[in-house]
């Protein structure tokens, strides 16, 4: 069999162009599979290890204020395992030589030691020493963005007071793998920080001595999550609990989950498309290759080679092409995955993230490729080898063609010879022709989808920041504040327009569906924060009732005119019924809107606001920032231009990779299409040659 193998190698070399083309298509399928599973495994593996080793909590709840003594009672709830009460507060920070306002979340840890849950992974330095009021640990992304090191100084406004802080350590936390400010879409490491400090210090600063305002806990194995949450809510309601949530609603966890879900789809859909196209291409091209091997095949049979030996020979030919494609796909996939690793390391802060192509993925992709190759090839091979050798040595009998329906309908002069030949070929193998067309359509569709996705994201961002969010600055107050604070804001340097808003966390319930979000109360005709209808026209807020984004209404399966139950999760917790009166077309978000007056009435409060939007004179931004820094009630200052830049930076970083993947897909698509076109052309030319011959004979 040595010589037969030598023939195989030389045949492969002779067919290198076609072999490489098919290999590229196979490689695309393998590449998408390798990228997806590698990323999937790296993300989920790193996450699960970090969660387990650092005791990431399973249930979270914000409370207005609860006494520490309550912990024993909470601990006793059936199904609760470990409980970690904390003080959590919004904070504003200043870093030397950085002008923009910085928002932060400050969390307490037991004095001088690690918490039981959500333990910190120290990257540098140490935890704050017990008894030290000025020491903090900061999130590593923030420290990295500002080049901070242990021992560096920070300035913070903690509950309205300027406080000098010193960095004791830099840490990662399972709670903040994805580290974006609570209202932001994308992380902005320079303008948002997470800090941890001794509980004694933080509780004193916020008047929380002997109390807590945030609770995280883990569940016992087999515990009923829903029952635990109900029991917690029942106990914590009188302490201003906003309703316990699971990891599902935890910002960082949710973001990673969504990323994983997307990767899971990618790991199945794209490779499936590519590998089935490859199998089809292999069958078409191998059929053609084997047709050209009709004579050597017949000779080998004449000399006594068995059908099985010859089938194996040609299966090896297909297998070698498939193997080449697989190896190419693995190499490209591993290269692209390592590129992705860089992007993911920036956005998900794991202590370690090992991008390793899992052996099972190699085995699976190899199996799928070999199966695709064999499925695609066996018919052509078997048809060729099972033909009696004497028949194989004779010229093939003329193929049986028929006049097509189109020829019968159209007058004879309308269709030329070429058109007739093509039509008859297509009509002879309708399934093959349909599949070819479907394959080309699919390739084109994938190309369109790639281009469409990029454009769609671009358009969504444009719409969000050019038509919906028209403010320059978003201020959030530490707590609901009397609306007259707006007057003070109007007098700050550079402020052109002020519009106030009230935000209240709620759970919207419609029939059996519910969704946790917040109700945003605005002036009836908001100028800085538009609410758009389907035609992108600004809408006036209704006097009564609630407006939902079309997406949120879909989630709740609610239509205009339906009554929604609204569970208010702040202040006096109660349930009210509100009619859904209008839908909002917004590209991003799951918002619920009403007038601020109506929301204040629902809350049984006076004209209170949670924050304000400002339109400012760009020339006076620095003076405004300085003035806002001095305002004690302001918990955070968000700059819209920076938020938009953050999203665009993220897209710019990922776009190269996405572009590369789509270039690979496009290449594969073009190859697929060109191979098919080539087949049609070759056949057509073959027929045309025949016509020329006939004409010459005439």
């Amino acid at each position, binding site marked *: *069999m*040595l*010589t*037969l193998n*030598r*023939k195989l190698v*030389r*045949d492969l070399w*002779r067919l290198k162009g076609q072999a490489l083309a098919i290999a590229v298509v196979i490689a695309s399928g393998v590449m998408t599979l390798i990228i997806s599973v590698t990323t999937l495994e790296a993300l989920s593996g790193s996450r699960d290890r970090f969660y387990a080793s650092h005791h990431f909590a399973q249930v979270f709840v914000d409370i207005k204020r609860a006494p520490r003594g309550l912990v024993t009672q909470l601990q006793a709830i059936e199904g609760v395992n470990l409980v970690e009460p904390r003080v959590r507060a919004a904070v504003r920070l200043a870093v030397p030589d950085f002008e923009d306002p910085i928002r932060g979340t400050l969390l307490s840890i037991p004095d001088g030691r690690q918490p039981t849950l959500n333990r910190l992974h120290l990257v540098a330095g140490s935890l704050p020493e017990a008894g030290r009021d000025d020491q903090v640990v900061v999130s590593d992304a923030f420290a990295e963005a500002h080049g901070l090191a242990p021992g560096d100084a920070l300035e913070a406004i903690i509950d309205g007071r300027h406080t000098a802080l010193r960095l004791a350590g830099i840490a990662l936390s399972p709670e903040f793998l994805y580290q974006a400010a609570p209202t932001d879409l994308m992380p902005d490491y320079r303008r948002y920080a997470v800090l941890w400090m001794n509980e004694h210090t933080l509780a004193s600063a916020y008047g929380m001595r002997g109390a807590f305002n945030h609770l995280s806990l883990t569940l016992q194995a087999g515990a009923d999550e829903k029952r635990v949450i109900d029991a917690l809510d029942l106990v914590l309601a009188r302490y201003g609990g906003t309703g316990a949530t699971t990891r599902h609603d935890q910002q960082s966890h949710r973001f990673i989950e969504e990323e994983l879900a997307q990767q899971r789809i990618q790991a199945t859909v794209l490779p499936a498309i590519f590998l089935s196209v490859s199998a089809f291409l292999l069958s078409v091209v191998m059929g053609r290759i084997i047709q050209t091997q009709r*004579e*050597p095949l*017949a*000779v*080998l*049979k*004449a*000399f*006594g*080679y*068995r*059908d099985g030996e010859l089938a194996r020979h040609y299966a090896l030919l297909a297998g070698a092409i498939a193997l080449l494609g697989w190896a190419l796909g693995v190499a490209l996939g591993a290269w692209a995955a390592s590129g992705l690793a860089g992007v993911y390391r920036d956005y998900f802060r794991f202590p370690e993230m090992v991008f390793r192509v899992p052996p099972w993925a190699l085995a699976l992709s190899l199996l799928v490729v070999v199966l695709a190759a064999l499925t695609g090839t066996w018919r052509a091979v078997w048809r060729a080898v*099972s033909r*009696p*050798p*004497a*028949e194989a*040595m004779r010229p093939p*009998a*003329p193929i*049986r063609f028929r006049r097509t329906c189109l020829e019968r309908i159209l007058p004879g002069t309308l269709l030329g010879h070429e058109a007739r030949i093509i039509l008859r070929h297509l009509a002879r193998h309708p399934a093959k022709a349909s599949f070819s067309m479907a394959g080309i359509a699919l390739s084109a569709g994938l190309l369109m989808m790639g281009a469409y996705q990029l454009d769609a994201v671009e358009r969504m961002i444009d719409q969000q920041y050019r038509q919906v969010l028209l403010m320059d600055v978003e201020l959030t107050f530490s707590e609901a504040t009397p609306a007259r604070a707006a007057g003070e804001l109007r007098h700050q340097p550079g402020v052109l327009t002020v519009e106030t808003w009230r935000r209240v966390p709620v759970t919207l319930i419609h029939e059996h569906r519910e969704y946790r979000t917040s109700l945003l109360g605005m002036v009836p005709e908001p100028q800085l924060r538009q609410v758009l209808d389907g035609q992108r026209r600004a809408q006036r807020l209704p006097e009564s009732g609630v407006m939902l984004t079309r997406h949120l209404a879909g989630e709740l399966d609610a239509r205009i005119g339906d009554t929604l139950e609204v569970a208010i999760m702040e202040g006096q917790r109660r349930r009210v019924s509100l009619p859904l009166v209008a839908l909002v077309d917004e590209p991003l978000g799951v918002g619920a809107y009403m007038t601020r007056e109506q929301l204040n009435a629902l809350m049984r409060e006076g004209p209170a606001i949670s924050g304000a939007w400002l339109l400012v004179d760009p020339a006076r931004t620095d003076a405004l920032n300085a003035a806002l820094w001095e305002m004690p009630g302001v918990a955070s200052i968000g700059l819209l231009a920076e938020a938009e830049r953050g999203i665009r930076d993220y897209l710019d970083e990922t776009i190269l990779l996405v572009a590369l993947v789509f270039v690979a897909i496009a290449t594969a698509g073009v190859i697929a299409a060109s191979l098919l076109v080539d087949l049609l052309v070759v056949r057509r030319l073959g027929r045309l040659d025949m016509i020329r011959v006939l004409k010459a004979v005439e």
Partner: protein
Amino acid sequence: MDNDREVVFATRGLTRLYRMGEVTIQALQGVDLALRRGELLVMLGASGSGKSTLLNILGGLDSPSEGEVHYRDAAGREHDLSRASQRELTRFRRHHVGFVFQFYNLISSLTARENVAIVTEISRNPMTPEAALALVGLEERLDHFPSQLSGGEQQRVAIARAVAKQPDVLLCDEPTGALDFRTGIRVLEVLERVNRETGTTLAIITHNEVIGEMADRVVRLRDGRVDEIHANAQRRPAHELRW
């Protein structure tokens, strides 16, 4: 020719129908023939007389539509080729028959040596490819690819390939059909030598009457039937043939 020689092939009422597209062709219509061990038989006939079809059936490349073909191997075992399965026919071709085709049918991606080796590798008692190529006078052209060989050389490689496994029977389909006179004679000399020196039964089909003179017997075919069988009193050496 010695009529007492053992019969290698015996056919009775051999018929073969082909469907070519929508046309049915009757290639053989009841052929009765015997081929004896060690003889050199030439089958003559015009195009379409059925000689290639007969050769294909004798060589196990094809099966008859009707009639019988029996083959007796060197060990005296009888094989009914007309009822043999594809697997049995493959085994028969592998161990008993060698073919030489009009257009050589060499594998273009293999050298002369490899074209022979591809057959010897699956044979029971083969010569070395080098010895087989030396037998046809190509010991200097072992590593040449078909594209580097002349037509005559290619046909000699094809003969070396056919004889290398030391078959009982060598079946040649128009072996000189694609060659000029001088090269054709050279090829016939090789075939004659193989028949003489190895005792291989040799059947040559041709439409060239002259070649019949080198045979023990000449069988004429016409319209799928045996028209005449003629025994030469004396075989004429190949190098004396002229056309």
